[in-house]
């Protein structure tokens, strides 16, 4: 039977961490590209977060949870790399260069057509790591550069260059698809 301390800690944890469940789940969906893997990873993330909650000193809960989730997801990547079946549909491996390349920007600006969320999610899913996670943390999870640096354990300068590259790749892929559908 849990003691009073455990119950109080659980309650504090509930109030601090559970409001970000959708955020953590969103990142997990983009990182793992699979709904049930994402659920498992998020649950594991919250278990670990509770375990380390005593040593949590803030200030921001969201980047802290994201950092834990990344570790969980990296373990999942490692597992997939060992499992034969998973290899083929794992993108972002170094040898798999995306079919679009970052192009020299053409001076004329084409306006992108609005797309439904599902199509955009697919484009984001196809981005290679670590560019995808930087992009999702900034554009979808609304973290500041400093918070992203905290969550991924990289300097702010690295975050900036990854983000620039992620956006360039996404836009190129987006335009390539529009070209294709014409």
């Amino acid at each position, binding site marked *: 039977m849990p003691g009073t301390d455990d119950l109080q800690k*659980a309650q504090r944890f*509930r109030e601090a961490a559970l409001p970000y*469940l959708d955020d953590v789940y969103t990142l997990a969906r983009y990182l793992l590209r699979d709904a049930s893997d994402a659920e498992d990873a998020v649950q594991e993330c919250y278990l670990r977060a509770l375990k380390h909650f005593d040593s949590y000193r803030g200030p921001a809960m969201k980047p802290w949870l994201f950092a834990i989730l990344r570790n969980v997801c990296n373990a999942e990547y490692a597992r997939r790399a060992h499992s034969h079946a998973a290899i083929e549909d794992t993108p972002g491996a170094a040898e798999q260069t995306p079919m679009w390349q970052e192009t020299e920007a053409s001076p004329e600006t084409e*306006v992108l057509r*609005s797309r439904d969320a599902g199509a955009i999610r697919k484009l984001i899913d196809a981005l290679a790591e670590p560019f995808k996670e930087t992009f999702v943390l900034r554009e979808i999870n609304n973290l500041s550069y400093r918070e992203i640096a905290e969550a991924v354990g990289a300097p702010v300068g690295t975050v900036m260059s990854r983000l620039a590259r992620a*956006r360039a790749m996404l836009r190129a892929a987006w335009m390539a698809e529009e070209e294709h559908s014409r």
Partner: protein
Amino acid sequence: MTCDEAKILLHALLDNELDAGHAREVEAHIAGCPACAAELAAQRDMKRVLSDANLRYTAPDRLRARIEASLPQPQRQSLSRRSVLRGFAMGSAVSALAASGVVAVVLRQDDQQRVLSEVVSAHLRSLQAGHLTDVISTDQHTVKPWFNGKLDVAPPVIDLTAQGFTLVGGRLDYIDARAIGAVVYRRRQHVINLFVSQTSNTEYRAPKTETMQGFNCRRWGNRGLNFWAVSDIGADELAEFVDKFETAMKANVEG
């Protein structure tokens, strides 16, 4: 500033992450560089389209439930009752007769729990506009006769205004599928519902306070009647109400 630098920094400009000095530098470069200006416009355009789309996912309820279930939980009463049953099911030395006795006790408790929840529901219903009283009177000699013929029992109606609990009226209610009398009191802005029903048990049962959904309920039995006093006032004030009521009723009977 070179174009390579500007192509990275223009994102920080878009995201409002640059301090004023750097922002000016990037803007100055862009003003003189059509390629970087086009890139900035293109990225601003993409940001706009992205912000129109809902790209977030919503965690499924079952995931929330799974995480909730993995947190340390306060022990619940129903759980402990079930574990009592499980203990008996597993203890081979315990005779079936004794076990069935326990089952009866357990069921009776569940029954009381159900009645308690009905009493609290009735209290909640009474707080909705226009549901509190069928007969409005601060005079016990008006409220008491009103119940005549409506119930198989005459609920004691006692004016406790002098003791700090104002009688406001009476009402018919239904608890456990039976018509039952409710005598309504007020303490400051708080409503106290006193539910009264008949019972074949004439033994005195001492008052006991239980809490459900934030309401205190004090239950006791006396002279063949079951009483439930329900209110959102504190447990100590509710106990005081029951004491005053019992004292006054005793005086009525003996007097």
